[in-house]
């Protein structure tokens, strides 16, 4: 049934195994559950071997882009004379996503361990955990865990007696969506305004403080420990459809669904069964209408598309969307799609960093038009204008925030044109509300 409930029998809890287990938050409790064994093992291996195991396992970035983690780590060339840095992206700000929050709340030591393994693997002595400003509780537990780890000699200049220096710093952001973009995160970490940087240079060449940097998502780093302990083959075997998508993935489900929560399933799991079985299906008397499967910035799926989806990187793309961050937003037939899209657009307009023209002006303009249509003041030309603005906002800016704002608008108009037209033509949206049994 997914956290905060007991796991559903069809879930595969690897990372979420100790959710709700208060003792796992402490160092002693974590060690009792096999914690820091992976780090100990890692410190006995060569960094190149660790990178190879991760490469072999097929682990891909869990933050949204799905870039192969082992390959990302291998970009960090040892002995280039510059300090290397590991950044853990814990800014989880994608609307609908709350998996990293739970990971840090319940298993903070897992992230400390993951950071230490990752830092060692890329030849870094310092890892930064950039935590979203609103995450006060995860921040507390992360700070506790880092403190405990230093006191126990797990971190510091002689990490676990290996002679290697590994420092982990927890840095609190101020709560900006854009600081989850890797280069904006680095700017923010350095004390600058959180604006994305132009790439190239890529972080692996010039990242934090101008040094080679690797940025990984919380879930990605935490997954490294079980991979090292159980081997690449064990991880690779956890795959239900496409061999390019291996392992388990946390999905945070919210919206109009019976049992919202954080679920961990093996990649390739059928989305239909996930929604109707694990998540309990729609609320009483309602029907699912649409799903946004990977956080607010991925294309909206119709139910037909969603029900045909296998939950992995390729499966979502095949059905017109993306896996993204795994933030599943379920929308039922009582909701107006125009309202939903207008609200999403407003979010992006609020969070645009204001650098690029198309994003700064386009997100706000899109919002104004969307809200006008929602309020029954739209015209048929507005839809053409929206699509044209969306085209101007796609692929022309430094980062993908403006693309993200355009995506729900374009997919919304394409897949739910009828709702737009109804509002424009003065037919108000009437939700179907069933009598409560």
């Amino acid at each position, binding site marked *: 049934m997914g956290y905060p409930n007991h796991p559903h029998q069809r879930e595969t809890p690897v990372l979420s195994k100790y959710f709700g287990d208060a003792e796992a938050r402490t160092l002693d409790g974590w060690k009792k559950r096999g914690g820091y064994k992976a780090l100990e093992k890692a410190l006995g291996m060569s960094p190149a071997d660790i990178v190879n195991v991760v490469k072999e396992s097929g682990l891909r970035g869990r933050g949204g882009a799905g870039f192969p983690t082992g390959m990302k780590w291998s970009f960090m060339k040892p002995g280039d004379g510059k300090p290397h840095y590991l950044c853990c992206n814990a800014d989880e700000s994608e609307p609908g996503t709350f998996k990293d929050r739970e990971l840090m709340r319940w298993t903070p030591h897992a992230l400390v361990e993951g950071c230490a393994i990752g830092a060692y693997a890329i030849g870094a002595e310092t890892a930064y955990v950039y935590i979203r400003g609103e995450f006060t509780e995860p921040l507390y537990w992360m700070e506790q865990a880092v403190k405990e780890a230093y006191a126990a000699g797990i971190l510091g200049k002689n990490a676990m007696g290996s002679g290697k220096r590994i420092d982990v710093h927890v840095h609190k952001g101020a709560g900006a969506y854009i600081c989850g973009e890797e280069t904006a995160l680095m700017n923010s970490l350095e004390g600058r305004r959180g604006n994305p940087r132009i790439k190239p240079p890529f972080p692996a060449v010039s990242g934090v403080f101008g040094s080679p940097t690797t940025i990984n998502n919380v879930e990605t780093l935490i997954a490294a420990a079980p991979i090292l302990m159980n081997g690449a083959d064990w991880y690779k075997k956890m795959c239900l459809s496409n061999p390019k998508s291996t392992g388990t993935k946390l999905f945070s489900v919210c919206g109009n669904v019976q049992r919202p929560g954080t679920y961990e399933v093996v990649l390739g799991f059928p989305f239909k069964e996930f929604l109707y079985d694990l998540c309990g299906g729609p609320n009483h008397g309602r029907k699912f209408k649409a799903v946004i499967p990977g956080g607010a910035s991925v294309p909206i799926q119709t139910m037909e598309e969603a029900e045909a989806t296998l939950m992995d990187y390729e499966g979502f793309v095949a059905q017109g969307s993306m896996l993204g961050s795994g933030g599943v937003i379920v929308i039922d037939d009582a909701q107006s799609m125009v309202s939903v899209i207008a609200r999403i657009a407003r979010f992006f307009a609020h*969070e645009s960093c204001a650098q690029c*023209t198309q994003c*700064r*002006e386009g997100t706000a*303009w899109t919002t104004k038009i969307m809200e006008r249509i929602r309020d029954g003041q739209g015209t048929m*030309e507005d839809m053409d204008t929206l699509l*044209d603005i969306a085209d101007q906002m796609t692929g*022309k800016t430094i980062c993908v925030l403006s693309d993200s704002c355009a995506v729900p608008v374009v997919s919304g108009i394409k897949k739910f044109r009828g709702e737009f037209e109804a509002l424009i033509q003065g037919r108000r949206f009437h939700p179907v509300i069933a009598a409560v049994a």
Partner: protein
Amino acid sequence: MAETKMINLTIEGRAVSVPDGTTILEAAKTAGILIPHYCYHPGLPIAGVCRMCLVEVEKAPKLAPSCATTVAEGQVVHVHSEKSLDARKGVLEMLLINHPLDCPICDQSGECELQDYTYQEGREDSRYREPKRFNPAEDFGGDVIYVPNRCILCTRCVRFMDDVAHDPALSVAERGDRALIGKFEGKDLTHPWAANVVDLCPVGALLSKDFLNKARAWELDRTASICPNCTQGCNVMMETRENQLVRMRPRQNEYVNAFFMCDWGRLNYRWMNEKNRAEQPMIRRGNALAATTWEAAIAAASRALKGKKVFVAASPMLSNEALYLLTQLMQGGSGAFRVTEGPEAPLPGVEDLALRRERAANVNGAEALGFKKTTDLLAGLSQGDVLIVAGEDLAGIDAAAVARAGEVIVISSVLPEAANNASVVLPIANFSEEEGTVTNLRGRVQRFTQARQAPGETRPSWLVLGDLLGAMGKQSNFFLPSEVFAQLASSNSAFAGLSYDTIGFKGLPLANAPASRPKAPVAVGAA
């Protein structure tokens, strides 16, 4: 220096060859193609935020920002293809949705890049139907006013203050379409070079208080000149309206001032419009000076000088040409000058660029031509010598010291009070009214040209001095200042090899001047 690798590419069908590391935007300039842009400025670090300079590069998946994309061998770039024109049209429409169409009351109108590019390739109409954002105008201190409604957030001003002036005073405040340029708490644009942000602003968001509502851009006449206000010799455009100098703005010269000029120099132009001018040649009749013709005045001056030892009290504002001709009048005498001083104010982001301590244009030229720099101006004046007061105002000079002179000849724009007993007054044009050259503190000889008409019967200094030399029987047949300079170059080894043609409008160093390097552009990517 190692040979720089050259990269060959094609831009708009033209073959271009540029050094490795050049951006597409700069490479296009060498082929005579201006790629429209706002945030890019060659004197600032690259931001790549306006997205105006997007061009189509063959085989690239997306349009490339040409200001932030370096050239690659064999690249084929399309600046005016349908795709790139469409993208720029989109940017222009977006920039205009919150930009008021108040061009009729905007100071920038006529020299506004948003206006220019919108006329060039923008949409005819806007599809924006919603209300525009409004923020009140703000006094940024110094000479600068900020009008946020017109701001397109190119951040040139922010980058200038951060990376060139090294005085972070500005930042982008807020996010999304609410963003505007903000001033840090307690900070003002009082840096001695801060007013450059007004020139850098591509639209009418940053305005000069001094120039506010004074003139429309198309009413101005622009003349290439040199800032006369210190020894740095920044290259400027003198902008006049109805013969009045209303604004000075920097003119690019990578050997002197890059793209900038200081606020003090910029705002210190009113003296060139002064009204208390000596407008007619005069000679002494009894106890008073009386107007006369140029012929009579020149003849009187020549009589007074005949066979006498001459002491010249010169102004370091005079051109090389005038100073050179003055040395020809000395007849065994000597010359001296004094110079006003003020605090030095460097621009940290540009090598060897500062508002200099010595506040006159031609201190180095005067010294190169043998004039003595002194604080006691008339110390070299012996009893009975003829004193030529050339451009000097004699402020603070005791009349008794002047009285040592046997005779006083004034060759100035303004009649100094201390020289009331002058026997001849020859009125000359001031710095903005004539052509000539000056030598800056690094020995660079630079031309300035006539921006205004001289009042009354005043004549250019070189012409007056040439006529005087002619009247005294010395060779002089000068029709142009370039001829005076040619004679100077042939008689003075420091000026050897220079001519108006070779100097051009970027100047050349004296033969003995230290080698000067081009100003290094601000390091790319220094965010």
